[in-house]
């Protein structure tokens, strides 16, 4: 009986992110685009900090609006099972960008952050074939996307087995036979702090070999710091996500490469999937319950094509707005 979500009787779907970021603005564009295409309303919600608490509130409010489906990127799935399941009980619920294993979600659309982390590790290996000391920079630990990416990266560099449940405490130095992870530095989503963290790292480890930024704004901050220190190119930068600065840096060689997801398709596919399910068509759900939108490694040779692809999407953003 989910009828009157929106006055015009259109179906309405909620698209919930795990924070506020440009990354999600692209996803929003995808979601809205799908909304246009399928003639449904899409309520995009970007919860601010503290994200887990805000996500709970957001879901409650969407449920209160009798939406016909929700796609969410849970911040900390293990702890949010009851919220997610409550939502799943009251409406169609899928996860995107980060999965909630063991929940009643219908399907997960996205990639595996742990694998993405390992991809990032592979990029590091390419950039520093004969090993070296690296430092990790991330907005905040304690949320899955950060923890899993970090763990994947570490495990890859230390040539460990695939096991996303591992956890290395931050703050202690991790030595492999080739690579050393000096430390993981957090900045609480403050770009200024991100930059000064990078600078301090350069000050403490003048001959550091590589710096990895796990959140979209980390690589630009790192690049800024390197530029100021005149170490651009000396220190290898490995990035995550598709910040314009990052891509530019890859093109002119000051950043080795980045692991990109496909936020636009997260948004697009999520809404498409929800719309179909809400129409009662469960066939769209893959047997695995996992619609893989794999992460990609972007390096100097692939960056130009990717940029053009991205720009078309951004344009899309503009017209949807």
């Amino acid at each position: 009986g989910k009828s009157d979500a929106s006055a015009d009787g259109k179906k309405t779907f909620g698209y919930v992110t795990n924070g506020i970021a440009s990354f999600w603005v692209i996803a929003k564009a995808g979601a809205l685009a799908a909304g246009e295409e399928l003639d449904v309303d899409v309520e995009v919600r970007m919860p601010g900090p503290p994200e887990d608490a805000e996500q709970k509130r957001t879901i409650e409010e969407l449920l209160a609006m009798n939406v016909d489906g929700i796609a969410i990127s849970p911040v900390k799935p293990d702890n949010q099972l009851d919220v997610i399941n409550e939502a799943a009980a009251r409406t169609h619920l899928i996860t995107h960008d980060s999965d909630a294993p063991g929940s009643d979600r219908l399907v997960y659309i996205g990639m595996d952050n742990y694998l993405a982390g390992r991809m990032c590790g592979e990029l590091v290996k390419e950039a520093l074939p004969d090993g070296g000391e690296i430092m990790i920079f991330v907005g905040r630990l304690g949320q899955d996307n950060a923890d899993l990416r970090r763990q994947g990266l570490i495990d890859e560099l230390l040539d460990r087995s695939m096991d996303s449940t591992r956890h290395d405490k931050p703050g202690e130095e991790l030595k492999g036979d080739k690579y050393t992870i000096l430390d993981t530095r957090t900045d609480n989503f403050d770009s200024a702090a991100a930059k000064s963290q990078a600078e301090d790292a350069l000050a403490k480890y003048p001959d550091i070999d590589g710096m990895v930024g796990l959140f979209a704004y980390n690589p630009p901050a790192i690049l800024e710091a390197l530029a100021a220190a005149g170490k651009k190119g000396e220190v290898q930068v490995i990035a995550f996500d598709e910040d314009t600065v990052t891509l530019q840096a890859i093109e002119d060689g000051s950043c080795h490469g980045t692991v990109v997801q496909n936020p636009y398709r997260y948004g697009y596919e999520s809404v498409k999937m929800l719309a179909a399910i809400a129409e009662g068509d469960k066939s769209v759900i893959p047997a695995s319950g996992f619609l893989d939108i794999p992460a990609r490694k972007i390096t100097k040779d692939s960056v130009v094509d990717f940029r053009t692809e991205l720009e078309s999407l951004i344009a899309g953003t503009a017209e949807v707005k």
Partner: protein
Amino acid sequence: MKKILGITTLLIVVVAATAALSPNFLTAYNVQNIIRWSALFGILSVGVAFVIVTGGIDLSIGSVVGLVGCTLAMLLNPIDERPPGWAWKSVFQIQGCIAIVAAVIWGLARFYGRSRGSGRRLLWLGLAGAALFAAGRYAPGFDLPAWLHLPFVVLWVLALSLQIGLLHGLLITKIGLQPFVVTLCGLLFYRGLTRWVAADQTQGFGSGFTGLRKLATGKLPLTDDFALPVPAIALAVLAILSGVLLNKTIFGRYMLALGRNETATRYSGIDTDRYVILAYAICSLLAGIGGILFALDINSIQPSGHGNFYELYAIAAAVLGGCSLRGGEGSILGVVIGAAVMRVLYNAINVLGIPTQLEFAIIGLVILGGVIADELVKRLAAKRRAARQARDPA
């Protein structure tokens, strides 16, 4: 009652407007959620109201919420393996440290002639602290029986928050620091402490402790389609107690008095320091209770983020509710309503599908509007009074 007239009207207006615009606003489900959130934040606001009444401020609430939530989850549901009795032992050590610190502050205060506490009591405090610490450090670990563990932990985190409040009070009264500074340091310190003890790992209760979590998520069915969230009951109880304390007992009376004129109150033979400390203790204790409920409700406590900015919401609610930051004024009921207004606004913005980006902007505007209206009404009343006086001077 006149004090809360404005805020009540505001609440009614917002509710009515939203209800008129969206059919989904006044559904049992949505109302229950609003009530639950209002209750959770309301508890914090009631706490800070006491501090504000004494003319102080507490910026550390959010960090206390984070610390309490995190420690609670860690002690009840440790993520990684711990040696037996680690909970006991760490608790003892922390308690020991706190006691020692308190003793030191007191000592300084006495040395600088700011306090009159007897030297012996002080010595005992210090020794007790040392003993406690030693016990925690070197005693063999043994685990409590499960049925004892839970209440012990809950009581302890409450005690912890209480002590935090006492510490603030001591620093402010005995050393003579400014509340803003002390609690600002608290804001930073407890946040750092939380991140450190939890090693930045998000804590939670997993899928267990359902019984305990009912405290925050449970509902009492009233009619067959409306149920009252448990936190609302908690708030009701706390608010009534606070109301009585503030308006019907000498404690509240003295807080109001010293909030306006500390000297005069002291000259009246009242040990003002004691009541200031009491106010901060109450504030932090309620922050602790709130912290427990938040943790149980959200079940996911990010050490670095959980509770950020909550102090500001609490203070805003208190101010909306008619507390004057100049001290000496405040109404508990008003504060509760103030908290409700804020939550209703949040909810309305989303239920009405207003872009979330505007959330803060709207909240800010409404608070501002509220206080401006309040101020202008006050002025008008004063004008009237003067005019009346002029007509019949007697």
